[in-house]
């Protein structure tokens, strides 16, 4: 919302600096994003009077001028301008000046003669005829009136003001208008707002002879007001009007269009003007579009409209899409003789849907979406007709068409003033509240425990309902000043703050991964079909049950990921290709599966990726084992298997009983290639839910063994396809007369000389101990014999000789 300070000054006494105004408005809830100069970019340009003008000694086309800039000595300026003369006052850019196009002026020598600046034309100053009379001429700008020499050019041209660019919050639709925002600005400046009075133009004749209006959908169009003007004189608007429109960034077109635009700017109510000659049957019908109907709008585009859209039609055809854009068939042209001004209320939510469907939002539509109100529709129409009269643009016909289903009664709400104090933590008397509300033109009176508040018609954000107390509390807090409210700490029951269990587990798992030397990643949640293909994921895999986004950035970001692997591979590729020197990463984040329920299944997963010279399947496996041990998870197994993006023969599914904790493995070389990963990588994905579910949180102290442990090794020869886990299970489960066998670990695998082909030697270390005694040599010997026997019996493993 652009608010020119000059425009504001028509309504209030601007007695503060721009900075102070910005701050005062901020405390009222109006953020001013930018204070824009009327002559943006121009600095150090002043008025000078040309005292003498001589021919340049070395150049025919140049002149050497001596100019007065209000200082003791005259300044020499060399110019090529042809329209300057002795005695003329012109703008001169001094050394170090900046011009509208960003150019910087420096003193210079022109063909041997010093020049301490440059005369400026309107282009250099960024102004046009609308800003200053004569600015449309070529050459240097000759000032029309006498000004003190040395005066800033902005002051001389009357363009020394600023435009405030205000960011409005969506609740204050009323402030999307000069009148509305000035009302608030006056209050912010502590002044009474002088509401402009609109002269009611009676007109002659009877509007009913010219047109009629029927509303067929009163829900979508609760009010439609219109007046007719005949004997139109379509012409350019006067300068003051054009200037005003330009100052808020609007392009003047002709007096009729400019009038509706000015009313839009001043009162925030969109209007439309129809050429009455083009309205068949002199009838305006507000109705829903018919299936297959088409309307060609003012921008020349033929648009297909659907039955949920509201049209302005005449007896035969659509003449506009209500609240969005008028039709080309009833557009105001130079030949228009009679016009119907429409000022109506259309339902914002419907307009919002229409603009979404048509992919077209106009200024008018934006206002309707934000919300307009029925009383203002009438005010806007009156203002437009006043302007028609003022501009002598035509003959105003008597009477107003007003089809109104909306409630335009005064809205009185009851507000519990004690409650307002409770919400705001203030201790105001109801009388103080009345006084405060009065400063923003809200009249109210005390009625016992309540304030009877008369809500101004334009304050559609103040509700009659449960929200009323809060609405008024907000106004009171805003007027009182948020900065005046003293912070307090919460009263009431002291609550015990804590981390929820999942949060604690999340912290622990992340901290553990950090202790493994991994960096934490955050990848986007999006993926796409090509990426799934690149991961070699089967067509019927669960990982293809992606949640689909209706309005994605593109195909490749159209799905929610079902695995963390793609994002992590991409980030790994970046790190390897940029040689960042780190190859261990993890991410703990959600993946989503569309399981045909209303909401998809959300699973939190821990992704781990390792890559580097010292990394292999077993460094990754080691980290996972350590993580599981750290969490106190016992009895997990690594079984052959895993997703398609892992290399066959080097992948494992991690299980615990019937539960799948996750999987890990070497990333498939084809996948590495697709993701531009230049070397081997190892990936694991574990279910956060499983880790948490199996985490041992009920630890109880067990006595540290009192009696010594006896370390022993054993090496056996087995068939190549015997898994280590089998042998570990056999050793650990051997029954040996109360001897505890623990910490069974593979420490060597050997194939080669001395071992038959197709066989391998597996060497294990373990410890033996008893709970209640030191083991004797005999007991140790017997235990070893038992182990050797069960290895042979259960795993066909021969002791290596």
């Amino acid at each position, binding site marked *: 919302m652009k608010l020119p300070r000059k425009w504001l000054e028509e309504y209030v006494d601007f007695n503060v600096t721009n900075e102070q105004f910005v701050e005062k408005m901020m405390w009222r809830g109006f953020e001013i994003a930018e204070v824009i100069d009327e002559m943006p970019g121009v600095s150090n340009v002043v008025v000078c009077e040309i005292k003498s003008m001589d021919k340049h000694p070395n150049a025919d086309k140049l002149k050497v001028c001596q100019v007065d800039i209000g200082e003791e000595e005259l300044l020499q300026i060399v110019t090529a301008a042809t329209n300057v003369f002795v005695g003329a006052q012109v703008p001169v850019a001094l050394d170090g000046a900046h011009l509208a196009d960003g150019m910087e002026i420096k003193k210079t020598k022109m063909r041997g003669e010093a020049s301490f600046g440059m005369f400026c034309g309107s282009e250099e100053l960024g102004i046009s005829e609308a800003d200053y009379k004569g600015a449309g001429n070529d050459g240097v700008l000759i000032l029309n009136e006498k000004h003190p020499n040395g005066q800033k050019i902005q002051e001389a041209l009357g363009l020394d003001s600023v435009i405030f660019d205000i960011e409005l919050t969506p609740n204050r639709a009323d402030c999307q208008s000069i009148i509305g925002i000035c009302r608030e600005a006056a209050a912010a400046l502590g002044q009474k707002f002088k509401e402009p009075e609109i002269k009611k133009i009676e007109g002659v004749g009877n509007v009913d002879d010219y047109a009629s209006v029927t509303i067929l959908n009163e829900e979508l169009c609760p009010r439609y007001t219109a007046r007719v003007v005949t004997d139109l004189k379509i012409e350019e608007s006067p300068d003051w009007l054009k200037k005003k429109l330009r100052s808020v960034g609007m392009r003047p077109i002709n007096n009729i269009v400019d009038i509706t635009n000015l009313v839009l700017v001043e009162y925030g109510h969109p209007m439309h003007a129809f050429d009455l000659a083009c309205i068949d049957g002199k009838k305006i019908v507000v109705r829903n579009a018919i299936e297959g109907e088409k309307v060609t709008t003012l921008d020349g585009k033929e648009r297909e409209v659907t039955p949920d859209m509201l049209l302005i039609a005449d007896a035969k055809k659509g003449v506009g899409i209500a609240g969005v854009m008028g039709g080309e068939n009833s557009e105001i042209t130079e030949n228009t003789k009679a016009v119907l001004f429409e000022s109506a209320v259309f339902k914002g939510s419907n307009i919002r849907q229409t603009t979404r469907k048509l992919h077209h939002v106009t200024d008018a539509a934006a206002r309707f979406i934000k919300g307009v109100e029925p009383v203002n529709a009438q005010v806007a129409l009156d203002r437009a007709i006043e302007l028609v009269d003022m501009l002598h643009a035509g003959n105003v016909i008597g009477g107003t068409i007003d089809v109104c289903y909306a409630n335009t009664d005064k809205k009185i709400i009851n507000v519990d003033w004690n409650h307002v104090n409770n919400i705001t933590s203030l201790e105001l008397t109801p009388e103080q509240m009345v006084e405060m509300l009065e400063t923003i033109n809200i009249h109210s009176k005390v009625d016992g425990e309540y304030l009877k508040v008369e809500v101004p018609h334009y304050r559609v954000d103040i509700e009659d309902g449960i929200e009323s107390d809060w609405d008024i509390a907000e106004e009171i807090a805003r007027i009182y000043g948020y900065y005046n409210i003293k912070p307090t700490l919460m009263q009431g029951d002291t609550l015990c703050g804590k981390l929820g269990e999942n949060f604690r587990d999340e912290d622990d798992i992340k901290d553990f991964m950090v202790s493994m030397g991994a*960096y934490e990643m955050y990848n986007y949640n999006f993926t796409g079909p090509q990426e799934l293909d690149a991961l070699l994921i089967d067509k019927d895999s669960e990982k293809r049950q992606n949640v689909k986004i209706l309005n994605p950035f593109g195909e490749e970001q159209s799905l929610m990921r079902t695995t963390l692997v793609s994002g992590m591979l991409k980030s790994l590729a970046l790190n390897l290709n940029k040689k960042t020197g780190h190859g261990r990463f993890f991410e703990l984040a959600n993946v989503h599966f569309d399981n045909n329920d209303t909401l998809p299944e959300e699973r939190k997963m821990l992704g781990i990726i390792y890559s580097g010279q010292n990394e292999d399947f077993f460094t990754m496996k080691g980290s996972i084992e350590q993580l599981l041990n750290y969490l106190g998870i016992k009895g997990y197994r690594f079984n052959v298997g895993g997703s398609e993006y892992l290399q066959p023969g080097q992948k494992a599914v991690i299980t615990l009983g019937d539960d799948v904790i996750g999987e890990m493995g070497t990333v498939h070389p084809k996948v590495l290639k697709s993701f531009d990963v230049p070397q081997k990588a190892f990936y694991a994905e574990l279910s956060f839910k499983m880790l948490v579910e199996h985490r041992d949180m009920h630890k109880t102290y067990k006595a540290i063994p009192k009696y010594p442990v006896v370390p022993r090794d054993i090496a056996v020869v087995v068939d190549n396809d015997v898994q280590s886990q089998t042998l570990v299970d056999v050793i650990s489960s051997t029954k040996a007369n109360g001897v505890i066998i623990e910490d069974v670990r593979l420490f060597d695998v050997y194939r080669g000389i001395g071992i038959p082909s197709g066989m391998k030697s597996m060497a294990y270390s373990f410890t033996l101990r008893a709970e209640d005694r030191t083991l004797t040599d005999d007991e140790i010997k017997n235990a070893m014999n038992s182990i050797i026997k069960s290895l042979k019996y259960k795993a066909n493993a021969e002791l290596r000789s």
Partner: protein
Amino acid sequence: MIEKLEQIRLEALEKLQQAKEEAEIDEIMGSVLGKKGKLTEILKTMGTLDKEKRAALGQASNAVKKELEEKIAQSKAKVAEAMLERKFAQEAIDVTEPGKQVLPVGRLHPMTQTYRQIRDALVGMGFTTFEGPEVELDDFNFTKLNLPPDHPARDMQDTFYINDKVVLRTHTSPVEARALMELKPPFRLVIPGRVFRVDEVDATHSPVFMQMEGLVVDKNITLADLKGTIDTFVHAVFGDEVKTRFRPSYFPFTEPSAEVDISCTICGGKGCRVCKNTGWIEILGCGITNPHEIENCGLDPKEWKAFAFGIGVDRVANLKYGITDIRLLYDNDARFLKQF
């Protein structure tokens, strides 16, 4: 005999003086005190002497023996010390060579670090963590929060849609609605999580980012309590010297609403590029929970008051660490991550 004894003593002492190795000392010891040692030889002759002389010689030789034994022990200690020094000299290393780092040092993402800092400050104030789904019902994300379908303020948050009932949540606020419906008040919650908006990626926008929501529900909650709570945790996160500023604003789910600025952490409030020369940086939105939301979730707004605030964790992390491009948070470049 006494003279001979003295001679043995002096000779031994001199040799000990010069001894460099333990073996030398042992040899000296043997040659004097051993079975065939010189002193032993003398003692062997004692039997041939008369009583007086025997006593005198015995005394003298014992004294010498004792002295020599002491000296031998001293020499041995000295030699051992010297050997150790030689060993140290041989084993001296270049302490400036790099250490062996068996495992690299891992890092938590700066966003996680920032999130934990804010969260821990709030937990200290009696807040408990809570969470909800990332793919969320439109009803929770908007309607229950006083944003019915086609409410203009829905345009404040460009939304990814899954279908007309399901969205990628645009903020953590839907979890407020879930908490209000699930939990028994009073409660104080801190709700972190990823949120999604249709924002093309650039230096200040990301379609995925992290938010934290605070929600307090109790009987007598006021705007002043909200101010006090936010002041406290801002100071915990940014330091006591940071100032806060509450500006009136608008959110559909709160009323009165405020935006909170902190004095610029980069320039200290003097004005710089980051704060666009205002000295202030916006860090969060907050307010007294709108009674419609309380009512929509099944509580009586006259009985139960609430306040809520929403913080962009990305934004706070960027401010804390002086990160100027949000994309860095999602690139996962180790050269970036290792700085935190």
